[in-house]
């Protein structure tokens, strides 16, 4: 495989005049399960093998993706990719240039305690069914439970014209539980995800009992929750909500491709964008975390990237193209979902660093406000407008956690809100998730509990 890809790259450079070329081959095996209530829908297994070729010719990109490893088909594809690049260069104003990176030769095996490819499907069915049983058995008001399970095991080969040759094994285990509860006319909904790059052993900690109860309890508690008042309030954000906030509201703006597209961070590099208690990292090196890997899909080593230090923007997330534009080094954030798509700048494990407040200290001064503990989706725009839906939240009354609320969502402008973070807790949690930016990427995000002086709360109807 390696030799064939090296040859393809040589052809791109020597015969078709490419300035840069890379080949990414993938052999992947996936297992998927869906359980609805006590029923397993078809257990699914599949193979996804293919090659992605990316070339830079005359300053423009050409890309070809094929589900084959045959030499003649790949030769055809590389010639196609170079022709595509030449066509794309016809109207080019600013030729694309890339930051160079040093040649790497490495083989990165995975070392799980329990490799999902060696766990029988029967065991996976048993685990997912058991989660559903735990959810449904928690309370008879829980009406439905869907469990989706995915594992993915395989190998990626990455070869480029700078001499990098990497063989990197991939391993992901992921699971999502959705539950609904109903009482009279009230419908509630609860969601949890589990994700790991370590191995099937993640279910030794996140057992069906633990996960099941977490999902079911929330759905049931929400039944007696009230809808929040709409308006501006002080708030405590839990690690799970802080995570989605730093990811959605801040992180995307700091993806250098989006920064260049005009995100509000464009003219803020080196400037203060948050209160001094805010420090934010995007870190690909957290062991076993869902967003970790050793090399990205441009063959660049991953790293722990400091984005905000004590309130100042000090870094962005780069691929080779944006690094060149900013005259800096790529940060190992170029990721491709699979061989069908090209690598783009994605987050890894994104979090706010903890400080020194206890939870009690954060809450005690709030006369009336909200504690937002767990999120249900979030989204942000280049102008810095963010929205985070809340699936678990509580009132704070006179310094104490009070009644639960449901169907709240919070919104605001990211930079204004970051300036209003006035206290940061000492605890820390990292939560797995999936991020969509045209492609899906496995990530984590998190942080400690934080206090925000004010945030706009969209109430219920």
């Amino acid at each position: 495989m390696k030799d064939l890809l090296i040859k393809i790259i040589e052809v791109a450079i020597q015969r078709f005049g490419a300035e840069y070329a890379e080949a990414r081959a993938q052999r992947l095996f996936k297992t998927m399960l869906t359980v609805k209530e006590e029923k397993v829908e078809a257990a699914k297994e599949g193979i996804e093998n293919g090659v992605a070729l990316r070339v830079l010719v005359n300053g423009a990109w050409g890309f070809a993706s094929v589900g084959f490893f045959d030499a003649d088909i790949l030769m055809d594809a590389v010639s196609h990719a170079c022709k595509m690049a030449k066509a794309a260069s016809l109207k080019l104003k600013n030729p694309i240039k890339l930051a160079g990176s040093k040649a790497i030769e490495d083989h990165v095996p995975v070392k799980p305690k329990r490799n999902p490819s060696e766990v029988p499907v029967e065991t996976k069915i048993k685990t997912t069914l058991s989660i559903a049983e735990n959810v449904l058995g928690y309370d008879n008001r829980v009406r439905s439970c869907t469990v989706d399970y995915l594992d993915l095991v395989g190998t990626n080969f990455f070869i480029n014209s700078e001499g990098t040759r990497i063989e990197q094994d991939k391993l992901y285990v992921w699971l999502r539980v959705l539950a609904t509860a109903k009482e009279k006319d009230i419908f509630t909904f609860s969601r949890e995800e589990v994700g790991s790059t370590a191995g099937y052993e993640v279910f030794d900690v996140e057992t069906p009992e633990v996960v099941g109860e977490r999902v079911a309890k929330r759905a049931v508690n929400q039944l007696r929750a009230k809808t929040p008042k709409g308006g501006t309030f002080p708030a405590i954000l839990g690690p799970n909500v802080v995570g989605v906030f730093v990811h959605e509201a801040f992180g995307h703006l700091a993806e250098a491709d989006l920064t260049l597209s005009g995100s509000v961070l464009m003219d803020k590099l080196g400037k203060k964008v948050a209160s001094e208690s805010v420090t934010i990292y995007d870190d690909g090196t957290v062991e076993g975390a869902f967003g970790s890997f050793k090399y990205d899909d441009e063959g660049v080593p991953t790293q722990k990237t400091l984005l905000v230090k004590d309130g100042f923007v000090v870094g962005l997330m780069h691929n080779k193209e944006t690094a060149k534009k900013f005259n800096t080094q790529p940060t190992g954030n170029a990721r491709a979902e699979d061989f069908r798509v090209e690598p783009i700048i994605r987050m890894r494990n994104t979090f706010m660093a903890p400080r020194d407040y206890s939870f009690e200290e954060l809450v005690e001064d709030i006369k009336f406000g909200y504690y937002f503990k767990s999120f249900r989706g979030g989204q942000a725009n280049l102008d810095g407008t963010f929205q985070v839906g809340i699936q678990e939240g509580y009132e704070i009354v006179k310094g104490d956690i009070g009644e639960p609320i449901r169907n709240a969502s919070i919104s605001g402008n990211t930079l204004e809100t970051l300036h209003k973070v006035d206290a940061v807790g000492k605890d820390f949690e990292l939560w797995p998730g999936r991020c969509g930016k045209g492609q899906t990427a496995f990530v984590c995000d998190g942080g400690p509990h934080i206090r925000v002086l004010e945030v706009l709360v969209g109430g219920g109807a």
Partner: protein
Amino acid sequence: MAALKEEEIVSLAEFAVQYALKKGANEAEAFAYEGLTTTVTIERGQIAKSSRIIDRGLGLRTVVGKAIGFSYTNIIKDKAAIEETVSKALKSAKASKPDKDWQGFPSKKPFAKTKNTFDETICGLSPEDLVKTASIMLEASEKTDRRVFPVEGGVGASYLSRSIVNSNGINGFDGGTVVECSLATVAQESGEVTPVCFEFEAERLYKIDPEWVGAEAARQAASALKAKRVETKSMQVIFAHFAIQQLLYYTLMDAVKADYVQRGRSALQGKVGEKVASEIVTIHDDGLLDGGLRTWKFDGEGIPQQKTTIIENGVLRSYLYDNYTARKEDMESTGNAFRAGYLSTPHIEATNFHIIGGKKSPEELISEIKEGLLVYSVQGAHSSNPASGEFSVVATLAWKIEKGKIAHAVKGAMLAGNIFATLKNISALANNERKIGPLVTPWVLVEKIKVVGK
């Protein structure tokens, strides 16, 4: 690489089914998919990339006893790979548990007739042709307003084919084309950045208007500048096409799926025959819509697609069914089994969810509003409570309407409500229907929406 011929791809599917039966399956069904896509991509103001993606594969469902197994592969050029897929699907069925509600794969029925779903011209488009189209779009955008920056976009041309064979005699092939162009823009002026504005056209035939897309994307961004906050109060809101799609996708469009209903996850459970929307609302799921983006001769199980009335003058008439959920209720499938290519088993999805438009022009709708909002796009709809229909979203691209005229752009306004209550408060539908993914919709005027401003 050229597309596979109908005979080639169907015979692969036939072989998979025959081989599965021979190896001990009681029933088998193969779905083969091929997609050939050429795109050119606009990034940060220029055309800088072109791609060619070939994706093909086969997904196989096997039934042993009443237990179902599924396996897929994207290696379909030799029989050995198909044989391996068959044995994986059988293994997966044996590992699975029997489903007492399973009543078999569907039987053969004549396929539907479709109109305007294939255009040879689209198959013949070269990357140079697409570059030309993308340039027209970019230039139109640049010409419209100099404060506007085209962030990203592109032009794509695809040929897609789907084949299905099952052990009950279903055997079919359908090939179609799609061409699309899109442009996302932002405008910047004295430190203010607008939200990302987006415009696109997607068609089955080669009749897109890149000049309109470019100019319209730029017009939206320019007019989103100088945004102001609004007061918190209840007001009339016009939801434009994208906003409707964003609000309905996770709520109403899930609530009418028979599996959601049967599992108690739908707020519309038990409401067939009841009034669920304003009487001016009529919605068809039209799998045969002329030139519809999701129009095919048959669905993901080989059942002919059809036109199903979902809501008629406000009254709920039907849910959407696949074969499994239909047989459970002794009904017929409505042809709504959806496949994400070869990678998945079928699940229920709308085809072309068609909200029938009204008589008024969009300008007339605006002119009749004293105080309200025109909302083009919302953010956070996926964080709605899909079971109850409650939503709490930010209007990311919106304008204030005062005394029948657009007054100014709006920032930071949150909209909260319940989608099922909102359906009952629809007071007018415009005459400007358009295709947005699985939806065909006009602008929709809703009477009372809670707007949380400042």
